[in-house]
């Protein structure tokens, strides 16, 4: 007997219809120079379809929730009172200062603020910048996150409509961290926001990409961020995943760092039912530096997947990567960290560490550090651990009067702080610290 199952075609479910409809829309061809890029995205996705379980990069993460749910393409933002209210409330420790707010993947000028941005800095909508600043956008868009590199980047390239754009001219320093706040507020909607951050030579900026839900709608976000860090420039970025338990997100962040440039990425995941992040950093000039930190706190049935790539192609580049995860319930965390050291990348100094704390027998971690070294004069180390709380420590705390719950809370919090202390943006670090402390200790119990 053979059973025909619906939705098992590679580009299954609602997706062929989205592609077809969007291809015919005015938005698809609004910017003439981007038409070829979009068409490439479309063709690549139609060819590859979604990743299958046998795909090496998707061994531990099934895209089934994305292919099986019937999403609608997000065509306009759902800005109502609730969203406006939450846009003001979600500060992630950043009081005042510049903020770019996106609703359902669309930039909202009315909810955004440009306070504290120095002259010459351009911040706003990517869709607008594609027309008004094509000189800055065209040479970069789709060059770092290339259509065809992954199914989801292809899909985003075909379907994206808006996102955040930031340009910091050479030598300019933006002191105040820029909050890029994403709110999704429409049931069964799929959005494909796309961001481009460009730092000129010697420029400096901090960008906080925060993702939150004003309500508990079920939705899917397929986000792509490209960042171009020119010579001697420094970009400090944080990504805060704090969406509701009905949010599904797949994201790709692709960064290029030129000679003497600096890039730091701090990723904190506490929310979303399903989160996959592909983070790629190319160190393309000598003495370019990358620092990647991650802290995931997963509970319930959350699924968190970090795939990172640091590509050393020039000599004398240091890179540090430190990802930690805490798991309870039936949650699952995947870490796959690749470090490539190309033949020319002599004197590379790369260190990668992944540590996981399993607080439940039903939770599961899959960790795979991967070092591929083609140069001979390098210093590279990597290590991964999966462990439980040390019962001797718990007992020691108990002999000082602490309940086992509080003892475990303190020890778990200490485990998290060890990664958090490296986060680059102080206000964000403190905000996450406080919310973790509350979750792990004030509540008395971590659930």
């Amino acid at each position, binding site marked *: 007997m053979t059973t025909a199952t619906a939705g098992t075609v590679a580009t299954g479910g609602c997706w062929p219809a989205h592609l077809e409809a969007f291809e015919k829309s005015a938005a698809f061809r609004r910017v003439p120079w981007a038409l070829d890029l979009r068409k490439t995205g479309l063709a690549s996705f139609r060819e590859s379809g979604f990743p299958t379980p046998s795909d090496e990069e998707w061994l531990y993460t099934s895209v089934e929730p994305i292919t099986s749910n019937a999403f609608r393409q997000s065509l306009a933002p759902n800005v109502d009172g609730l969203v406006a209210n939450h846009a003001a409330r979600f500060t992630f420790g950043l009081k005042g200062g510049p903020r770019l707010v996106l609703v359902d993947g669309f930039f909202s000028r009315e909810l955004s603020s440009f306070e504290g941005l120095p002259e010459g800095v351009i911040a706003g909508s990517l869709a607008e910048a594609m027309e008004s600043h094509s000189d800055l956008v065209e040479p970069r868009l789709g060059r770092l996150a290339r259509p065809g590199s992954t199914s989801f980047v292809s899909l985003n390239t075909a379907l994206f409509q808006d996102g955040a754009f930031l340009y910091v001219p050479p030598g300019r320093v933006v002191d105040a961290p820029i909050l890029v706040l994403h709110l999704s507020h429409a049931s069964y909607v799929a959005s494909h926001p796309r961001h481009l951050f460009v730092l000129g030579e010697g420029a400096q900026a901090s960008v906080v990409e925060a993702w939150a839900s004003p309500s508990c709608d079920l939705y899917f976000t397929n986000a792509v961020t490209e960042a171009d860090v020119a010579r001697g420039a420094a970009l400090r970025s944080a990504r805060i995943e704090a969406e509701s338990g009905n949010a599904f997100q797949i994201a790709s962040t692709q960064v290029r760092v030129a000679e003497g440039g600096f890039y730091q990425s701090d990723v904190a995941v506490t929310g979303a039912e399903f989160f996959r992040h592909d983070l790629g950093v190319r160190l393309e000039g000598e003495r370019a530096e990358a620092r990647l930190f991650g802290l995931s706190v997963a509970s319930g049935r959350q699924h968190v997947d970090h795939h990172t790539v640091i590509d050393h192609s020039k000599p004398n580049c240091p890179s540090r990567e430190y990802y930690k995860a805490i798991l309870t319930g039936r949650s699952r965390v995947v870490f796959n960290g690749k470090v490539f050291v190309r033949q020319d990348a002599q004197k590379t100094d790369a260190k990668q560490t992944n540590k996981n704390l399993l607080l439940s027998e039903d939770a599961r971690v899959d960790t795979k550090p991967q070092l591929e070294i083609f140069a001979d004069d390098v210093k590279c180390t990597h290590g991964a651990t999966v462990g439980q709380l040390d019962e001797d*420590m718990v007992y*020691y705390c*108990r*002999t*000082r*009067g*602490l309940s086992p719950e509080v003892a475990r809370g303190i020890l778990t919090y200490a485990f998290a702080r060890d990664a958090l202390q490296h986060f680059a943006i102080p206000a964000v670090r403190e905000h996450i610290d406080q919310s973790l402390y509350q979750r792990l200790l004030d509540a008395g119990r971590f659930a």
Partner: protein
Amino acid sequence: MLEVKDLQAAVAKKPILKGLSLSVKAGEVHAIMGPNGSGKSTLAQVLAGHPSYEVTGGTVTYEGKDLLAMSPEDRAKDGIFLAFQYPVEIPGVSNSYFLRAGYNEIRRHRGEPEVDVMDFNKLLKEKSKVLHIDESLLNRPVNEGFSGGEKKRNEIFQLAVLEPKLAILDETDSGLDIDALRAVSDGVNRLRSKDRAFIVVTHYQRLLNYIVPDFVHVLSAGRIVKSGGKELALELEKRGYDWVKAPEAAEAR
């Protein structure tokens, strides 16, 4: 205060304590001596409530309550304190935070209001002066990277802050330099009172010159084989343990 009767305990199914009896009254200091492996730390851990030690027989009554039925934290809150022979390192948790958490749990239990960071830090400062503890240790993670002697001092520091009713010191003197030994002993002597009792496990008579015990017990093969006054420690120092050892311990040699 504490009544131990015919206590039997095992670790990993191996019997260690084999019928131990001990009676401690408020205000007393009891020294426990005995050869390596005789069960001194086992006794200390059983009294503190270590989950890996299985009590297989006997009773322990503390202030009229069945101690063995209490959780380690309830024992601590009711005034039992163990200074560990091997203090545990807790990376990432500062000494002062750790102590304040315990201190406030104990106060809550006694129905007293919690103490805030400022007031508690004042208290820590005072106590650290008395015990000659370097203040920088207060903000370092609990015991992490502490020298052996610093760990032992930190245990006594915790004791001084938590002010228990029954303090058990497991070889707190091992690893201390002469000045530290004096500082620790001074600290303990200052805490001696008619309401507070001490059980001091040691290998060295020297400590007992500073902390003068009311009773000295010799533990051998899981039993107390001899008890006496402070002069028993001097005699042991001279003659060793062979003459008091339990027959099965002598045979095992």
